[in-house]
C-alpha cells in the first residue's frame, strides 16, 4: 500500500503543466459552454412548457451530451495524454527498474485516470449550473423562470452514475494507452468505439451491455428503465475493476524493451 501511495503522489506531480491537467477543466466546461449558447439562442422556445426547469434542463442536457459524446472521446484523449507523459520521455524503463512492485505503478496510473474523469464530471455539474447563472445575469432571456428549484437531490446520482459506469471504458483505455506507445492506436479504439455508440444507443436490449454506452444509459432511467440502468452501472463498475486487475497483471508481466 505504501508503494501505491508513493506511486500515486509521483503521478500527481508528473501532471504539473501538462495538457492532460488542462483538459480536466477544458472538456467539461466546453460542454457547459455549448449548453449555455443553446440556452442563449433558443431560450425563448424552450419556455413553452409549464414544467420547464432551467436547472434541471441544464443538468440533464449537459450530462447526456457528456456521457454520450464527450466522455468516450475525453477518456481516449486523457488516458493517452497521461501515459504519453511517460512514453514520450521513455520513462518506463526507469520506473520499472525502481525497487517498487510494478503493479503499484500501473495501478497509480489507473486510479489517476479514474480520478481525472470523476473530477471533470463534478466540474461539468458546476459548469452546468454556472452557465444558468450566466444566462440569468446576461438578462438576454427574461422569459425563463430562474427561481425554479435546483434539483440538488438528482446531482449525486447523475455524477456517480456517469462516473462509475465509465470505469470499464477508463480501464480499457488505461490499458491501451500503457500497452501501445502510439497515440494512433488509442485514438482508433476510442473513435471506433464512440461511433458504435450512435448505433447501439437506439437499442434498448444492447445499449446497457456495451461499455461505451453504459455511462449515458446509467442516467437515463425513464428511457431505458430501472433494470437496464442498474445493469449498465453494475457492468461498467465491476467490469472496470476486473478489467483493471487483469490488464495490470498483463502489463506488469511484459518485458520492458
Amino acid at each position, binding site marked *: 500500500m505504501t508503494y501505491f501511495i*508513493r506511486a500515486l503522489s509521483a503521478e500527481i506531480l508528473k501532471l*504539473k503543466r501538462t495538457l492532460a491537467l488542462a483538459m480536466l477543466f477544458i472538456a467539461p466546461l466546453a460542454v457547459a459552454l455549448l449548453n449555455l449558447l443553446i440556452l442563449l439562442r433558443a431560450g425563448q422556445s424552450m419556455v413553452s412548457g409549464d414544467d420547464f426547469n432551467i436547472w434541471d434542463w441544464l443538468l440533464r442536457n449537459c450530462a447526456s451530451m457528456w456521457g454520450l459524446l464527450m466522455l468516450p472521446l475525453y477518456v481516449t484523449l486523457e488516458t493517452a495524454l497521461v501515459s504519453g507523459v511517460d512514453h514520450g520521455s*521513455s520513462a518506463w*524503463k526507469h520506473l*520499472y527498474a*525502481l525497487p517498487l512492485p510494478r503493479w503499484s505503478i500501473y495501478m497509480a496510473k489507473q486510479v489517476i485516470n479514474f480520478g481525472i474523469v470523476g473530477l471533470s464530471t463534478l466540474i461539468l455539474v458546476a459548469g452546468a449550473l454556472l452557465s444558468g447563472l450566466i444566462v440569468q445575469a446576461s438578462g438576454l432571456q427574461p422569459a425563463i423562470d430562474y427561481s425554479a428549484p435546483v434539483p440538488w437531490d438528482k446531482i449525486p446520482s447523475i455524477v456517480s452514475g456517469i462516473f462509475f459506469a465509465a470505469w470499464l471504458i477508463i480501464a480499457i483505455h488505461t490499458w491501451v494507452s500503457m500497452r501501445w506507445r502510439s497515440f494512433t492506436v488509442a485514438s482508433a479504439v476510442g473513435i471506433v468505439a464512440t461511433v458504435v455508440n450512435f448505433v447501439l444507443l437506439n437499442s434498448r436490449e444492447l445499449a446497457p451491455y456495451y461499455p461505451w454506452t453504459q455511462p449515458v444509459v446509467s442516467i437515463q432511467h425513464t428511457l431505458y428503465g430501472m433494470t437496464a440502468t442498474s445493469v449498465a452501472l453494475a457492468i461498467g463498475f465491476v467490469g472496470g475493476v476486473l478489467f483493471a486487475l487483469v490488464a495490470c497483471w498483463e502489463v506488469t508481466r511484459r518485458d*520492458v524493451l
Partner: protein
Amino acid sequence: MQSLAIETHQLSRRFGSITAVNDVNLAVRRGAVYGFLGPNGAGKTTTIRMLLGLIQPNAGRICLLDKPLRRNDRSPLRRVGALVEAPSLYGHLTGRENLEVTRRLLGAPREQISRVLDIVRLQDVADRRVSQYSLGMKQRLALALTLLGEPELLILDEPTNGLDPAGIHEIRDLIREFPRRYGITVFLSSHLLSEVEQVADAIGIIHRGRLMFQGSLDELRALREPHLAVGVDQTEAALGLLREAGYVVQGSPNGVIHVDANNATDAAELNRYLVTRGVAVHHLSLQQRSLEDIFLSLTGESHA
C-alpha cells in the same frame, strides 16, 4: 570468497531464434568500476535489462549485492541505481521536480535531492525546465536520479553516448569518484574500449551474446603478444627461410612480414639470420598490439 556486487550464472535470453545473451557468467567485485564492452547489438543492453528485472531471462540466475533477483522479489534493486540508454526525464518538469518524482517513488528523504544535485553540480539550474537542458546536463541529471536511493551499485548503460568531449569528461570524472568517495560499485557498458579504459579496473567483453573475456585491465593487456615487423627485398624467399628456421609468421601484408617474437635479442638474431642468407633487411621493428586491437580481435575474429 570475495563479495560480489553482480554475479550471474549461465544467464541466457533468446528473442525468437536469436540468442541475444548466451551463458553469461558475470562476476563484478564490490568497489570496482567494471567496464562491460561489446559492439552494438552484442547483448549488452539485454544483459543490463535482465540485471534490472526489466526483462526475464530464459535461463540462468542473477545475484545483486549477494541477493538473488527474482521476478517476484525485486528487493535487491533497492540498493541499485540504474540508467538505461537515453535518460528518462520529463521535459515539462524542472530538474528538481524530476528528482522529486523519483524521490517520491523511492520514499527517500527530502535532503537527498539537494545532495545529489550537489554531486552532479546542477544546483544552479535545478529550477529550470529539463526541456531547456543541454544533453550533457540531462545526462548528469539522469545520473543524479540513480543516486537518490543511496545505491551501493550503479548500473549505467552507455552513459556517455551522444555527449560532446566536455560532457564525456564530466561524466567520466563523476564515475571515477563514485567508488572512492561513496563506496559505490559501478557497472558501465560501452562500445568503445577507449572510453572504459580510463575509468575501469575490470573489463568484460561480450560479443554475439557470449562473454569473450573477463578480467582486469592488466590481464587484458597481457594478451598483447609483441611481434616483429620485418621489411625485406625478397618477401617470398624471406618467408621460406623464416619458416624453415621455425619462426611463426603471422602474415605479410604489403610486403611487411609479421613474426612472433618477444624482445630485441630475437630481433637481432632474426636480422643476422636473414642477412647471412642473402636477404636484405630494410625495416625491423618490435610492435605491440594496442588494447583496441585486442578488443577488435576478440569481437571481430568470429566475423571472419
